[in-house]
């Protein structure tokens, strides 16, 4: 297996310089995620407007290159989307990582699709899948306004 499939330039770059890092102003949803196996933590801050569109999406946390890049890319792709579109993108991402499905949504530009697909190499590394999916599960929790912390050992 070629490590470059996993550690693509785009992942290394987002891992080093994560976008939308920090707590955004005026957030009205937040959720915490935790991976008890490695101790990684992520906190997602979300501002939904009155139409339930994702106006702002930021995060705080620490973790490996895969988890930082995955979270950074997630915030870029989901910001500005409607609630339903956001949910659909998350769904497609999780299916891509777990069963290798293609990204079919028309709500992402080709450029954005390239970004999200840069993470598809993770599915060949079963022990690293949770690194990539933790923040996405946490975002679901934030969108749904759930109060409990996301725990990678308790989600699929």
């Amino acid at each position, binding site marked *: 297996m070629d*490590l470059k499939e996993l*550690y693509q330039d785009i992942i290394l770059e987002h891992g080093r310089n994560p976008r939308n890092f920090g707590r955004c102003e005026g957030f009205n949803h937040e959720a915490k995620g935790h991976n008890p196996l490695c101790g990684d*933590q992520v906190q997602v801050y979300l501002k939904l407007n009155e139409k339930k569109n994702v106006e702002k999406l930021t995060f705080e946390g620490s*973790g490996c290159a895969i988890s930082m890049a995955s979270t950074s890319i997630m915030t870029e792709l989901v910001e500005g989307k409607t609630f339903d579109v956001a949910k659909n993108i998350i769904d497609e991402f999780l299916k891509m990582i777990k069963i290798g499905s293609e990204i079919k949504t028309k709500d992402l530009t080709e450029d954005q699709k390239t970004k999200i697909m840069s993470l598809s190499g993770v599915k060949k590394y079963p022990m*690293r899948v949770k690194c990539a999916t933790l923040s996405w599960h946490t975002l679901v929790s934030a969108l749904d306004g759930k109060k409990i912390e996301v725990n990678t050992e308790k989600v699929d």
Partner: protein
Amino acid sequence: MNIENIKSQFPIFSKKINGKPLVYLDSSNSSQKPLNVINRLDEFYKNEFSNIGRSIHSLSVNATNKFDETRMNIKKFINANSKEEIIFTKNATESINLVAATFGQQNIEKGDEILITELEHHSNYVPWHYLRESKGAVIKFAPINDDGDIIIREFEKLITPKTKIIAITHLSNVTGTIVPVKEIIDIAHKKNIPVLVDGCQSAPHIKIDVKDLDCDFYAISCHKVYGPTGVGILYAKKEWLEKLPPYIGGGGMINEVTKEKISYAQLPEKYEAGTMPTAEVVAFNESINFMQSIGIENLMKHEQELTNYALEKMQAMNSVKLIGNPKNKAGVISFTIKGIHPHDIATILDEDGVAIRAGHHCCQILHEKLKLNATARVSFGVYNTKEDIDILCKAIKNCRKVFELK
């Protein structure tokens, strides 16, 4: 000692991992198994299998004798007084749970103190936490310094008239610190406090003499000592095992059962309820034979040389930060690399066939103290060589290449 000969006794090293020869540096997690142990398991299941102790037929008599031989050999190996002091459990975790539960039931009341250290593995913290929850006990953590050594003076200060038991590791699975347990046991015994030693990491690497240490309890996991999974050992002074209540109830641990009352079996059966991992215990005898064929002094010398060699080479790499610098260090080296998370290090090393561990190594208290979420860890077994360390160091350099760091 011919180390190549030792490596050749382990069939796994003829396998390739990701197309590369296996460099196994995760022995603190679990050791690989020599052929004599694997063969013994195989032979026992093929030709000798029976449950022990219950039947009169020949197979059962033989199995019972072989099971007992391992117990006798362990008694000699750790220099216990009698075979009644050797209890078979599932692993060191169960051994510690056994002591926490039975000792706690009899001796811990609300406000009583249990003294452990910041070095402890979760398995020497969580069982005591149960007593905090169920009995209102207080757990105190003896601090370590930046080198990863327990500060003995601070340790002494934490002992109070309410301290009922002390539980300490013999060897840290993160910093490799060899803890001066004899000194701590002396301090504790002067105040009549019993001491449990978590010997999970020490048993494969240093000479264990429970009589010399004078510890009250000593816990071992056989799978880390070149043995099969599913077997652990609890050494305990006979007076404790006689005094404490039984732990798991069931067949084999009783003397007489009536509708009104139950009396319990003699030692060691009192603590061995239900069918034991018979074949695994029998095969563990071969693990002890393997260690003795090398000689524990030779093994220690070899692993010390490896550790010094690895420390020297790793220290020379500017990007690598070693965790802890204890006075006496065994072959466990935790480290971080600037700009690369330990999980990424482990994935990249694995591509080169180098198996290490990344994470908190079941020591979250220690990692909190170190202000780190995770570390990468290499740990040695007797089969490792200097060449393994050269491959490791090359693989570490490759991490920076993959991450395009200068």
